[in-house]
């Protein structure tokens, strides 16, 4: 069967104030401390559009290859709920700010990240709308507590067409969108803080037949859970249909503890939102270089071209540049971008070391990253700074220590006791012995113990190493032994 997955993603706009009012946007503030008169729907208050939110939406639209509508409209979507003070949400139902875009994302064919394939999902539209407040149901005391801090915060709703076919694709697409939003700065897109919310629309059908009935899956709190929820729902639908049942066009919630989707209780029948144009907001007019009137104060208008010129490099471009500039593999560039701050760390190290990037990347991805993951730390929290790592790698490059020794030093640095690599090397006596005369003497001493048998050359090298506690340069030792043996 064909599996069809579409996504509705709400990204909270990163701005100082809300979409239509001047109250602050802040996570985890005391309840009802960031509520303006307008947010509380006090009668007589009017919406005033926040320019920064418009710019964020334009940036996002451009980054997703959308057409930006030079004229878009605001509408009221009516329903009654405790966290919606006005009894309606201001959104863009008729003509949203951006339409018809696309997002490319990559998947690994197997789990080893060694073969990547690029997929595309169409972006139907991006619309600006208000976030609602939060309501907490206290069943014990039979009451509902309402916090309006979030009411009115700006959202970009990004609608992805049902071009995806499984949890992995959905997850990869959302991950890429998250990176794009974070790169643009239009949203911090942290799912755990509710800045990125994803609802999945899932249906299945046999090839050649029309699309099946779709269900909407909500309450997905992480990218990992997104993949799980989608895959579970696909399976559930297939099982249901194969056993002769039908799929209801309903909304289901993902239960992360049980790993399944369950029907949501309070959706009684279809809602008629009674959409109506928002009469207090004129149409949103955007300009580009061509349509900008000559005497218009540029601070009063949003110029699409101006924003386009200032877009930062998107993740896909950044990755390509990293591959080209440093000769690393594409899979490496994905990992670098996937971890906040890792690319900067990598590039900082490169700047401070002579070691080739192709070798540095190994240290970054295999050593640094695995230590970070083991200790659940972010790059920012790394006890090993780029300076320290670069220092260590320089010593390795200069052959002051062996790579085994370097790993040992790294482990020491990780303890974060403030010692430099040099200090650790000295302390643990890890320096490679470079002095030829020294090594000659040691070799002679060893040879005095064993007879000059060519076959045991390697054994001799091993013995020398043991004798010198691994500090002798093996290449030099081999040369010296061979010389001695040939004498």
């Amino acid at each position, binding site marked *: 069967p064909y599996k069809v997955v579409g996504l509705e993603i709400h990204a909270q706009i990163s701005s100082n104030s809300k979409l239509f009012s001047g109250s602050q946007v802040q996570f985890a503030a005391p309840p009802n401390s960031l509520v303006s008169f307008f947010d509380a729907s006090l*009668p007589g208050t*009017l919406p005033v559009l926040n320019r920064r939110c418009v710019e964020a939406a334009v940036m996002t639209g451009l980054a997703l290859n959308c057409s930006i509508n030079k004229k878009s409209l605001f509408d009221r979507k009516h329903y009654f709920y*405790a966290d919606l003070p006005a009894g*309606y949400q201001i959104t863009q139902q008729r003509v949203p700010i951006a339409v018809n875009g696309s997002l490319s994302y990559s998947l690994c064919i197997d789990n080893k990240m060694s073969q990547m394939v690029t997929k595309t999902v169409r972006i139907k539209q991006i619309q600006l709308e208000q976030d609602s407040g939060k309501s907490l149901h206290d069943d014990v005391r039979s009451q509902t507590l309402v916090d309006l801090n979030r009411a009115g915060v700006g959202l970009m709703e990004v609608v992805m067409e049902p071009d995806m076919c499984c949890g992995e694709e959905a997850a990869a697409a959302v991950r890429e969108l998250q990176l794009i939003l974070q790169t643009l700065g239009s949203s911090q897109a942290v799912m755990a803080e509710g800045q990125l919310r994803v609802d999945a629309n899932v249906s299945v059908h046999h090839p050649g037949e029309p699309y099946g009935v779709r269900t909407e899956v909500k309450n997905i709190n992480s990218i990992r859970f997104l993949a799980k929820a989608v895959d579970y729902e696909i399976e559930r639908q297939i099982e249901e249909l194969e056993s002769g049942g039908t799929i209801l066009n309903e909304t289901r919630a993902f239960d992360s503890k049980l790993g399944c989707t369950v029907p949501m209780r309070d959706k009684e029948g279809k809602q008629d939102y009674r959409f109506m144009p928002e*009469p207090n907001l004129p149409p949103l007019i955007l300009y580009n270089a061509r349509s900008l009137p000559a005497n218009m104060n540029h601070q009063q208008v949003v110029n699409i071209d101006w924003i386009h010129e200032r877009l930062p490099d998107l993740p896909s471009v950044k990755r390509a540049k990293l591959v080209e500039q440093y000769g690393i593999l594409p899979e490496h560039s994905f990992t670098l971008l996937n971890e906040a701050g890792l690319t900067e760390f990598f590039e900082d190290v490169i700047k401070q070391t002579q070691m080739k990037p192709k070798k540095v990347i190994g240290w970054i991805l295999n050593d640094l990253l695995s230590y970070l993951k083991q200790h659940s730390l972010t790059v920012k929290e790394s006890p090993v700074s780029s300076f320290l790592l670069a220092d260590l790698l320089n010593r390795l490059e200069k052959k002051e220590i062996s790579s085994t020794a370097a790993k040992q030093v790294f482990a020491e640095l990780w303890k974060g006791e403030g010692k430099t690599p040099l200090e650790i090397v000295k302390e643990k006596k890890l320096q490679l012995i470079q002095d030829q005369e020294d090594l000659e003497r040691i070799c002679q001493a060893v040879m005095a113990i064993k007879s000059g048998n060519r076959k045991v050359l390697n054994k001799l090298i091993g013995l020398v190493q043991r004798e010198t506690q691994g500090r002798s340069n093996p290449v030099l030792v081999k040369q010296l032994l061979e010389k001695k043996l040939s004498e």
Partner: protein
Amino acid sequence: MMGNTMSLVSAALKEGRVAPTELCQRCLSLIKSTKFLNAYITVAEETALKQAEESEKRYKRGQPLGVLDGIPIAVKDNFNTAGIETTCASNMLKGYISPYNATVVQKLLDQGAVLLGKTNLDEFAMGSGSTDGVFGPVRNPWSYSRQYKEKSVPKSHSEDKDSNWVITGGSSGGSAAAVSSFTCFAALGSDTGGSTRNPAAHCGVVGLKPTYGLISRHGLIPLVNSMDVPGILTRCVDDAAVVLGSLAGHDPKDSTTIQDNFKPFELSDLTDVSKLSIGIPKEYHAPGLSSEILALWSKAADLFKNAGAKVIEVSLPHTRYSIVCYHVLCTAEVASNMARFDGLEYGHRSDMNKSTESMYAATRREGFNDVVRGRILSGNYFLLKQNYENYFIKAQKVRRLIANDFVKVFGSGVDILLTPTTLSDAIPYMEFIKEDNRTRSAQDDILTQAANMAGLPAINVPTALSERGLPVGLQFIGRSFQEKQLLTVAKWFEKQVKFPMIQLDEVKRHDHGVFQHQKSASFLEHRT
């Protein structure tokens, strides 16, 4: 003095002939003795006196803030006033004390005006009689005027003299009555389908509906966002121009106000009307128009003609669709605007607490009167997905046609339109309530609605007394943002007709003082 225009009183204040506190006291005590009019819902005595005291200090220093400094004014109770109850004459907002001032209120206060109180209205401004608020109906001051009493024939000797009082019209009846009975020198109303002009006509005062987008609606509790405007009620056209000058202009808090700079203007005395072209829209000869008003309208047209103006008949063919169009658009917006009244954040909250839904339902049933609830139901019906195209979208298109009628006429060289404001003079309350609110509104709004649909400025100028001794006014409709021209013509007309001053005993009792000798004269004095 109480009957004087604002400009005259302002001059008196400046010259020290009367003090702001004295003026304020007189107004407050007149309010008390005209309490039977029920024009005021809240009288803010303490704060008003404080404001008057502050004004007095400024005058003593020789630094008044402007013409409005120390002038007692009243504000319709659907404008937010910080610290003073704002009820919209509804149970839903009884006891509601707003934390902020509407922009227009703030502007008046910033100019030193003295806010006497909040005036009565139809609940949430829905109605054309000012009879359907929870605080009871407003009585037209002219019901108690000598002019009316002389003309009215008592039906029986034992009849209660109060029983044939007439309505003020609505929904800004309280504001109109307040200005008309001399308790204040200017008042704010609101105008969505005629709610400022209608009561102005019935109460014999000037009622100005400005162009949509000229004056901020921030803080005006909305009825129909796309049609509402703050309205200005005064005793003469010059006063309206002064108040307009202090209120108009872009407000960043209201995205529907225009950005252009507004220049307050003084009205010149028009001497030559020969360059003026007055349009008489034939469709405004509406069914139900009294023969009296028809005759007055005709007489007014002749007045302009004889003075040399070009007076031509014009057509606004879509006028007859305006009532149904208005009904659809108004109720749809009402349904939307009233959705916020759920008892959660402010206002009345029902004791019903079984569930959120039941609390909402009970709150709204208890808080709103039948008129409001009826409009909400209608509006929601029109907004349903299956109806939206046939009703809302259709009505929007008809609205465009109505607006285009005016564009065409004004584009053909007509400067101002002259029409009646109401179908008849004010009718007795007992007769008015025989029909329901919806019927009455539909009837009464026909002459005033279209200006709201098109967003145009319009003004009622009191013209003459009817056979029953009650005021009749005529309406001028102007081009968008051409208030200066509109008011200039209105002022000329006002001067020609010399509308008589109301003869109210209550006022006479209060009015001892400087201007006693002017009591019986027309109030259209020349300015000093």
